[in-house]
């Protein structure tokens, strides 16, 4: 402990929650806090890592080429990201319950180091609550906040996980003195030691653990169906059902929202492929092009995923016809006139994957307007926002 202790304050302001013994619940206990903390740390770790995967898939640094396989990778990482975040709601609230009396600890600050330590709790709680609240709002497409979700969620993640690492460093001694089979031998590490559980009539410490686990289980069971194949029938409280939508598939951005209804239906539509031997295809020529079938999921950043059967020309066949070399990156452009997602870049692993199509058909019918008629990109292991719809140009970069 640092030696620069502050003088002890007078006792007269110790009223209300500052009173000794103001919080009688036997759940306010360092061992319970440590155990819930370990689970929270795992949960936030999973969210942070899977979140980074999603971020760098959408904004790849120049040295990184994402693979197009395994097909299910992004579905798994992003599904896990959202599922873990949802299951963390009971965990976080229970943890905050167990440590709430520490907010009113007396004296409020004992030393400069103690003040600094308490200060780092602010970004930790603020960030943790913020990440869960904005994440839940965003998956429901409830945009009450006036900041751009993905960017803010990304930076707050760094802040929160940074504060979390500081918190773990500060509390490591308390954790070691209270958790693990040899904890009795480590009791000297801190004065924050678990007291034997007093008798009581309410929820016990074990009961709290069971209740938190049950809550996380119920939340997972009733939402995981939005990305886990075969669980759609249990999908009662998720913002998407993978089989609900035109042609049995959900839509994220409709043709009306993208303002492409008229241009996409224009009979004079042309697909333009720009490379060493540029060419254009009319609708009839596009349909006459060599077609293939791919079974690929749409895997949304919002955590849902839905399987579908797509039909259309392989992207690599179109690139070959335009003389575009195998190592080239291409840009796929939508008929949308503006917006952050009107075009996407396709790197060689995805552009050359035999499963990657410029799909004109979906689940045995002509592609629905809301799914990107007349043609859309569909590639394996790629976030849904980059599966550009209403495609009219493919350009070699």
């Amino acid at each position: 402990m640092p030696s620069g202790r502050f003088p002890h304050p007078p006792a007269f302001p110790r009223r209300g929650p500052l009173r000794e013994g103001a919080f009688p619940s036997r759940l306010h206990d360092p061992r319970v806090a440590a155990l819930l903390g370990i689970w929270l740390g795992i949960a936030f770790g999973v969210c942070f890592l899977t979140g980074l995967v999603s971020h760098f898939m959408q904004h790849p640094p120049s040295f990184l080429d994402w693979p197009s396989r395994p097909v299910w990778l992004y579905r798994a990482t992003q599904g896990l990201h959202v599922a873990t975040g949802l299951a963390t709601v009971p965990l976080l609230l229970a943890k905050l319950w167990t440590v709430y009396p520490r907010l009113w600890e007396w004296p409020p600050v004992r030393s400069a180091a103690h003040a600094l330590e308490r200060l780092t709790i602010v970004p930790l709680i603020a960030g943790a609550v913020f990440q869960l609240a904005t994440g839940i709002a965003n998956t429901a497409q409830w945009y009450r906040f006036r900041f751009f979700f993905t960017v803010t969620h990304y930076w707050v993640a760094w802040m929160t996980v940074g504060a979390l690492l500081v918190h773990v460093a500060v509390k490591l001694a308390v954790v070691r003195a209270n958790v693990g089979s040899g904890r009795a031998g480590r009791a000297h590490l801190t004065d924050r030691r678990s007291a034997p559980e007093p008798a009581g009539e309410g929820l016990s410490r074990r009961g709290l653990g069971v209740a938190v686990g049950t809550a996380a289980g119920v939340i997972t069971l009733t939402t995981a169906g939005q990305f886990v194949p075969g669980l759609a029938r249990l999908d009662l409280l998720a913002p998407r059902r993978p089989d609900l939508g035109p042609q049995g598939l959900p839509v994220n951005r409709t043709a009306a929202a993208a303002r492409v209804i008229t241009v996409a239906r224009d009979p004079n539509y042309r697909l333009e492929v720009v490379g060493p031997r540029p060419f254009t295809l009319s609708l009839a020529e596009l349909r006459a092009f060599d077609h293939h079938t791919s079974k690929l999921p749409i895997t949304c950043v919002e955590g849902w995923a839905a399987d579908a059967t797509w039909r259309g020309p392989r992207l690599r066949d179109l690139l070959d016809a335009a003389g575009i070399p195998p190592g080239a990156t291409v840009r796929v452009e939508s008929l949308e006139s503006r917006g952050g997602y009107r075009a996407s870049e396709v790197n060689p692993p995805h552009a050359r994957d035999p499963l990657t199509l410029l799909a004109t058909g979906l689940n045995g019918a002509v592609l629905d307007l809301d799914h990107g008629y007349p043609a859309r990109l569909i590639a394996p292991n790629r976030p849904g926002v980059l599966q550009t719809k209403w495609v009219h140009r493919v350009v070699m970069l």
Partner: protein
Amino acid sequence: MKANRGKALRGLLAAAGLAMAGYGIHGLLTMTRATNPPQAARWLIGGILVHDLVAFPVTAAVGLVLTRFVRAPYRAVVQGALLVSATVALASLPLWRGYGGSPDNPTVNPLPYGRNLAIVLGAVWAGAAALIVVRAVRAWRARRVSGPAGPTGSAESAGTVGSAPEPS
């Protein structure tokens, strides 16, 4: 020796954490067009205030009311079921409140969430009711064995709250 290594490790962890947090705050304050710092700050601080000044006191008040009206060993079951109900409802709040989505896209939030929440919470409370019956039978048996003055729910029997009920 060992203590020093531990200290160094903790120092390293804290330094890495401070660097990461600084990186995040720097990002928030640089990309202001996207992050809108005054708004982001309002939500960040708002989260703490809503928890510390509303969520915790309300939970504590509910706990206090329960001590008046629900006896051991049933109180623990009711507390556990309330915890599950409240957090399940919170995790799906925009859905059953009807917030979000857009009128031109019926595939966002497409389900009857009010009904679904009632089904899920119905299953949770059915599980809780079953546990209460089990505890009542156990207490009745214990009374029969040890006579009318015997102990009812001990801290031990108040400890378990049962496992995850399946939604139907």
